[in-house]
């Protein structure tokens, strides 16, 4: 394990302000340690990919950023996780307010069994008091932002479950965008989608990163190579290598990274 690096690579562009920073973050599920002392600085308004074989802790790491692991029994955390400089596991931090700032998109689209409109309006109704006209504007804005408006504008009252898989995933993104998050976490957002729906989500990510920070977990290395500015490689819960995506895929510094991305294991 001495091959595993502790410090992030200096190739991460200097000067871009950090949105998310973990300092010696460790996470356990009961006795099993899923994340081991991971220190990582994720820059603002960039797409950062987290890659690694199944069970390496990449989803655990991602879910820790909006405290989604809180709901799992026996989950314990040590170290620090800062979002905008604030320790999100400090006493008194309200996870609901944190999740307003940090949205999460799941692997499988999970729209509520409600209308398209109500899906997008859901979070807004939860967090804010809004008039009907304000709500209409937010829903339209979020659907436009998620590149879905043109496809659904004439059937906003229809069930979201009638949409295709790709549309459902963009609806879930619109639902997250409606409450104006600063960070969007995406946990294998395209693994249930066909290549065309995947391309639409990836295009959307490029548009969204102008206004928010995106962290994506993916097992698809080519997707990481296509979309991410920076990539972190996790193995057995440890951070092995973190750097500019181009450098990581052309000239990885670590033998483990090399062997993983070239398909020699995992």
């Amino acid at each position, binding site marked *: 394990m001495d091959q595993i690096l502790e410090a992030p690579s200096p190739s991460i562009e200097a000067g871009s302000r950090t949105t998310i920073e973990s300092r010696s973050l460790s996470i356990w599920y009961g006795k099993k340690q899923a994340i081991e002392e991971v220190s990582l600085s994720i820059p603002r308004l960039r797409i950062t990919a987290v890659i690694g074989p199944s069970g390496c802790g990449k989803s655990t790491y991602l879910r820790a950023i909006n405290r989604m692991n809180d709901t799992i029994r026996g989950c314990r955390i040590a170290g620090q996780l800062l979002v905008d400089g604030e320790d999100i596991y400090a006493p008194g931090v309200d996870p609901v307010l944190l999740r307003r700032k940090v949205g999460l998109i799941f692997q499988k689209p999970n729209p509520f069994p409600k209308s398209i409109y109500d899906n997008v309006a859901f979070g807004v109704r939860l967090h804010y008091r809004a008039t009907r006209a304000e709500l209409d504007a937010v829903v339209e804005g979020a659907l436009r932002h998620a590149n879905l408006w043109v496809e659904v504008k004439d059937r906003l009252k229809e069930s979201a479950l009638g949409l295709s898989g790709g549309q459902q995933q963009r609806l879930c993104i619109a639902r997250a965008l409606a409450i104006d998050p600063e960070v969007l976490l995406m946990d294998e957002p395209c693994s249930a989608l066909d290549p065309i729906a995947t391309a639409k989500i990836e295009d959307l990510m490029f548009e969204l990163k102008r206004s928010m920070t995106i962290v994506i977990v993916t097992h698809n290395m080519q997707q990481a190579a296509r979309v991410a500015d920076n990539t972190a490689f996790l193995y057995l819960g440890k951070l092995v290598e973190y750097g500019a995506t181009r450098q990581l895929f*052309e*000239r*990885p510094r670590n033998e483990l*990274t090399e062997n993983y*991305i070239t398909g020699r294991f995992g």
Partner: protein
Amino acid sequence: MSERAAQRKALSKGLDRLNERMVTLAELSELAIRKAMDSLARRDPVLAQEVMLLDREIYALQVEVEGACADLIALHAPVARDLRTVTTSLKITTDLDRIGRYGRDIAEITLQMVGRGGEPVSLPPRLREMADLTIEMVDTATDAFVKRYADTVRDIMIVDDKVDALHQENFRDLVGRMASGAVDVETGARYLYVNRYLERVADHAVNIGERVVYMVTGERPKPPADQG
């Protein structure tokens, strides 16, 4: 077998096949320049004709390697060392093809000299020495590629300096001998060509060496300070 393991197996097989072709290409190019110089030293038209044949084989193999590299990129999207192996092979084939082409050029000079008849003029000794050093460079460079070994590349650079010095010396020597009438102008002029071709072959060997360093380490060797 998992999908990733199956992909790796297919890519490995493709890379192995590419490597076999590259090794053959490297051997043929080295053989071409070696035989070309022998044909010149011995005024041997049969050997010269063999070089012509080798050049055609080298070209055909180069085209094959280019196709294999394009297939690997299109079908397997290689990354890291795999990607560097493919891109390096693609670049090196051009160098190897050029070396084969210079072999043919030298073999043509052999045929022209044989065609002219007359008393054979023996190969200038420094030209023979330069040819030996150049062939040694090609040998080291192609061996570094085959064995994925970057450490010997430094030796290539040192030998290249000697080749460059010999190139200058040969030029002055041949011009002097042509001026004094020790060598007739046409023969001297042809040797000047050979002198130039060998110097170019040595440069291609240096290119190959530098690309092997990139392939193995991911770092590009820094150019010498005096070249900026």
